[in-house]
């Protein structure tokens, strides 16, 4: 069994799974319960400025029969008095010395306010501090949360206020509500942060009720934008994680990253690890199913690590980062084509319509090897989809819509052309940047676009 323990900027935990700063970490009752079930750590629900919450608070995005493909919320930071939170953080840490207990804070943007809250957190015995620069609703309007995270200069300034006065590891939590997340990441590095965490929730309106025309969640007939999270945000989180993990400043400073955004299963977790996350934070999956999911998260991750021959989590952290490239560095001569296995094909012909109407018209419907027109065909033999490999651009779409496992495979074929990237090509033959030059080049190397 693989070693799941991690050391995150000096914060140790028996496994990489932490509860994110959110409703599941609102109280000692919840965090104790989570630790009993095996969670490696918890980032306490953000403490700081006094707030009042509204009712209702959460909105769900249901797709097909899947509930909570995503959730959004307009709940604010903890509305429990600060001294209650601080007392409970201290109690929990004392009870669970081997788990990571991290306090999250968000206060008015003054050095005094931050000094005050940091000193109080230090007294609890917490293992670290997460600076919440991410919350996109409610607090941002008061100059906190994402209002800080979206301005790199504020990011650096406040991080400096904190890192200069505390001995605890400082984790800066980044907002995705920004055009380039590496800017606040670099700003946090400049401010002396010990670690980063991302992503916070994405600004969103989750939906409109078709009967009442009211926004969801509905507060007395009105609604407001809220933070979007859950499975649907994972691809965005993975992109931002890979961008930050691959950033030179972050890499040089060797800052560990706590990854989050849509982690529901050990599979999601493994992807975050491969793209450079050291610890993993989970919220929506727990809000949906409860703390018990930790069993499969740890067990599944451990079995997968064993299968891959990795003795510990640390061996695979960032293992896929070298595979993150910019488009200009991709090999233009790489060639794959789709191949449909007639033995397993069930003739749903979704590949045909997807290719014909949604992509590049490279699949024919055939009967006895002869192409038929589905608009006029009336025979009794069910037509079979067949890929015209010479025309197939290798877009993957057919294999993505195919409902049968492994029926459509993307097969690598020689293109007959030497490897070349767009960056190399445009450097060596800048004439391809004009259409006549491009035509000449295509004719020469035999690129035919049908």
């Amino acid at each position, binding site marked *: 069994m693989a070693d799941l323990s991690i050391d995150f900027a000096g914060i140790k935990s028996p496994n990489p799974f932490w509860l994110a700063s959110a409703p599941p970490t609102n109280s000692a009752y919840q965090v104790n319960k989570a630790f009993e079930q095996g969670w490696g750590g918890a980032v306490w629900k953000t403490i700081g400025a006094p707030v009042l919450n509204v009712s209702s608070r959460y909105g769900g995005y249901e797709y*097909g*029969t899947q509930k909570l493909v995503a959730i959004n919320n307009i709940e604010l930071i903890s509305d429990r008095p600060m001294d209650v939170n601080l007392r409970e953080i201290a109690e929990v840490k004392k009870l669970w010395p081997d788990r990571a207990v991290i306090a999250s804070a968000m206060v008015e943007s003054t050095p005094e306010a931050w000094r005050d809250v940091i000193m109080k957190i230090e007294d609890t015995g917490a293992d670290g501090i997460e600076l919440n620069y991410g919350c996109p609703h409610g607090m941002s309007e008061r100059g906190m949360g994402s209002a800080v995270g979206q301005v790199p200069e504020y990011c650096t300034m406040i991080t400096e206020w904190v890192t200069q006065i505390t001995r605890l590891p400082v984790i800066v939590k980044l907002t995705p509500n920004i055009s380039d997340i590496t800017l606040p990441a670099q700003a946090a590095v400049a401010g002396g942060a010990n670690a980063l965490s991302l992503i916070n929730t994405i600004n969103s309106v989750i939906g409109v009720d078709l009967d009442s025309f009211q926004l969801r969640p509905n507060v007395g007939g009105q609604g407001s934008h809220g933070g979007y999270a859950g499975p649907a945000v994972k691809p965005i989180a993975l992109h931002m994680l890979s961008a930050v993990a691959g950033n030179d400043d972050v890499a040089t400073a060797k800052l560990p990253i706590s990854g989050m955004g849509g982690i529901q299963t050990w599979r999601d977790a493994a992807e975050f690890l491969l793209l450079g996350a050291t610890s993993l934070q989970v919220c929506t999956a727990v809000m949906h199913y409860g703390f018990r999911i930790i069993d499969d998260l740890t067990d599944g991750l451990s079995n997968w690590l064993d299968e891959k021959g990795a003795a510990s989590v640390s061996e695979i952290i960032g293992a896929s980062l070298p595979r993150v490239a910019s488009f200009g560095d991709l090999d233009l001569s790489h060639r794959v084509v789709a191949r449909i296995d007639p033995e397993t094909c*069930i*003739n*749903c*012909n*979704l590949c*045909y*319509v997807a290719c014909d109407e949604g992509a590049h018209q490279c699949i024919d*419907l055939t009967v006895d090897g002869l192409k038929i027109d*589905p608009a006029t065909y009336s025979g009794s033999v*069910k*037509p079979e989809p067949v890929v015209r490999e010479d025309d197939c651009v290798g877009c993957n779409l057919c294999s993505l819509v195919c*409902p049968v496992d492994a029926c459509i495979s993307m097969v690598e074929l020689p293109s007959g052309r030497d490897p070349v990237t767009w960056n190399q090509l445009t450097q060596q033959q800048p004439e391809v940047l004009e259409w006549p030059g491009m035509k000449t080049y295509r004719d020469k190397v035999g690129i035919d676009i049908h």
Partner: protein
Amino acid sequence: MDKTPLSLEALQARFQELEPPLSKHEAKVEAHRCLYCYDAPCIAACPTSIDVPTFIRKIGTGNVLGAATTILEANLMGASCSRVCPVEELCEGACVLGGDHKPIEIGRLQRYAMDYLYERDVMPFTPEPSNGRRVAVVGAGPAGLTCAGELAKLGYDVTVYDKNPLPGGLSTYGIVVMREPIRVALEEVEFIKKLGVKVETGVAVGEDVTADDLLGGYDAVFLGVGMGAVPDLRVPGEDLEGVTEALSFIAETKLAEKEGLEHLQDLPLGRRVAVIGAGNTAIDAATIAKRLGAERVTIVYRRSEAEMTAYDFEYRFIKNEGVSFEFLSQPVEIVGNDGQVSGLKCVKMQLSNPGDDGRPRPIPVPDSEFVIECDQVIKAIGQQKFGALFEHFGLDVERGYLTVDEGLRTSHPQIFAGGDCIRATGEAMTVTATEDGKQAAKSIHAWLGTAVAAD
């Protein structure tokens, strides 16, 4: 003869629809299992070509009214068909998921959509303005109602005549309650009437109304008269108390259900029942007898299991109901006691070389007579054709069935026909009758519509 020994509660449990309706959530989950195939095989497998993937997708998105409309555009008998179609032989049998998954429950999804529409009493169609043409339809079964409804949508003035007191044909009288409650059949008739169709029941064409009346009073006539009564066995004892025929036996239970299931308690029922024949009607009659509480129900068939014309799923079903079988047995006499049936005398048969119809011919085994003790005999040995009626119209027939061309026109240019009365070959199903009605309406419109445009 006895009556059912069962309480009303027991009858209610036994005479409700076999399949429960899908709940809203079940329908949504099932709809989302559908792959939404392109050029889907279920459409091709449906005799009325319902756009199955489209209506299922509409259920999935919550557009259930739209789903019902998609169904009705192809099949005005959508509610009946969703209940009585042999779906495993048709749409569900063609489902691409049937290979290594469970096929989509297309029939139950269709019923869900149709129930939704009927519960809300919605009319999704607006008939065209009247075009002044008149069409008479004979027979208010699935073929006639469909033909009438389709023509009414196109602006025709249509009157349907039916000799029975209630419209609906086999849906009303002939499909067992557990498969289709009479309410569903009658709601379907009301839907057709809302399209502007007039329905005249209790009118026997050929007697109360003549062929000349119809041909003189209407631009076209559609005959969807189905089939007649079950023929006699032509064995001694057929007039004994306790001998009945399957269609009226089933019809009585349908009518009892209409008035309230307690009326089932008034029906005569034997303790030991012999049903003669092994088609779907025989299965239905045996099912009813068993569910009414008969102690022993035996299906008597002169050929073997392999030659039965009932569907496989019907045969599986009836065996589960606890009905027993006497294969290779030919009734030769109904034995009586004081004018009341006391047994069915049969002779054992063996199969020999196939006859003209390609099926093995049963021939009697000498000295093999035996008696099945019973106090009720139900005949289900097929149905007679309406020979006299066809003669009254002067129409060509072949083996008793009306002769029609590809456009379902009979030998008389003004008369079209469809449904069981033309089905000399192939399966006689509600859905094929419905398709006939639809196609005949198209033919009539193609013929009369040109003249309308020219008027």
